[in-house]
């Protein structure tokens, strides 16, 4: 059963429709809450266990001891000395990361945070390695 110009009515109707696209970047793109974007780092929480580094499929994270360490807490009288909590820095290679968020799931201390930040393009390669302190 062949009917010519079957699509004609539909085409006419579409002439009066709003475009399906949005005018990004002038209009903000809609991002869902579960979107996996840039991974952020919360240094005080990190214990330097390196689990995120081991699980990352793209070798995108490095966790290193910070250059400046916080001073050891003052020793209370009659108590044994408390060792200082070590502080860690995170180097995130945004150009390696595949944004799977497996590191966020693996981190035992919730020191890595998934953000909805996706506008990560840059003109310099060096700027793609973020140093979180």
């Amino acid at each position, binding site marked *: 059963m062949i009917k010519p110009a079957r*699509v004609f009515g539909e085409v006419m109707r579409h002439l009066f429709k709003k475009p399906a696209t949005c005018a990004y970047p002038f209009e903000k793109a809609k991002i869902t809450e579960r979107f996996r974007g840039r991974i952020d780092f919360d240094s005080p929480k990190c214990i330097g266990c390196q689990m995120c580094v081991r699980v990352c499929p793209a070798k995108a994270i490095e966790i290193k001891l910070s250059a400046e360490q916080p001073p050891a807490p003052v020793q209370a009288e009659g108590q044994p000395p408390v060792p200082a909590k070590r502080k860690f820095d995170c180097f995130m290679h945004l150009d390696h990361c595949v944004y799977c968020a*497996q590191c966020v799931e693996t981190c035992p201390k919730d020191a890595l945070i998934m953000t909805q930040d996706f506008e990560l393009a840059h003109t310099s390669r060096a700027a793609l390695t973020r140093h979180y302190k």
Partner: protein
Amino acid sequence: MAKITIPFGPQHPALKEPENFMLVLEGEQISGSTINLGYNHRGMEKAAESRTYIQNLYLIERVCGICSHSHTTTYITNVEELAKAEVPQRALAIRTLIAELERVHSHLLWLGVAGYEMGFETLFMYTWRDREQVLDCLELLSGNRVHYSINTIGGVRRDVSAEQKAEVLKRIKFLEGRTQYYIKLALEEPTIAARTADVGRLPPEVALERGAVGPTARASGIARDVRKDEPYLLYDKLDFKLITHNTNDVFGRLVVRALELVESYKMINQVINNLPEGPISVKVPMKIAPGEAVNHYEAPRGEDIHYLKSNGTDKPERLKVRAPTMANLQSVSYMLEGGWLADVPLVIAAIDPCMSCTDRAAVWDQKKGKMAVYGWEELRKLGIEHYKHRGIDFSKL
């Protein structure tokens, strides 16, 4: 008439993926064709051997952009089989849901590509716009549009909430209406009939002989579907029809895919309305017990087969992937023969090829016309020779 051979591809043969077809032409008619694979070999199977099971999940997902869920699910079923993990029912249901959404997205994409190849760009624009609805569903459920990463070893990573269910159902309802319109269009619009009827014929005996899979086989009247033949996930509990068509041509492949969309909507509704309660994942140790496993899966393009060998460590010893396009390419050379040059893009696109998932390792010596299988020693020798030509000597290592 004199015969001439022209290369078709590897740059942009019908689709933006590198593959080479050598076509022997007599005038405008094709009298023979050879397919050359290997322009897109990425060494994924080898790479998988040096990554842990959980890292491989994200690697395997990238075998193909469109069947990303198909590949990880097949891979993960193997891993879970070896680890003897009991995956919760809710996780299986969510995997089924994503699998069917993925099929909808893939089939709508194909419908657009087919429209484009037959010069019916209006259809291409409409289907791709509507496909955004299903991509939005996938983004809503998993976070991303293409690489959903919903699977994890032992279950799924993200649950489905009540609002998400309602949102997905709303979008699927809209798509149902649109799909009914496309089915009508496919059956009644003269452009489609003129461009697809009797193009790229593949009789059932040839389809069987050449091992066609998926919609390509089903359009030749072969009732073959892993979801029915050997149900995995929740498919044995779902009510759906196996779609076949008997015109054996591109038109049949179009009808099969369009009708399969309707079946997928049905399944999505069933899964969402009967989502089992319970946890969404179980813990699986990093190290997987030694053993071998093979599983297959009905990807949108056809049967996908994964083989996995474990040696008791946290990394696989061997992983082998047989993607559906590999199985269907044999049929393409038959479909091209006797056809017209102008139909080539359409015929190639009709199997919904995905070259990057196909290219893994096939060594074909064209001069001798022989297939060769290389062992470890020979590969090593070849590698050393190759580098010697470039001035680096590895033979002492």
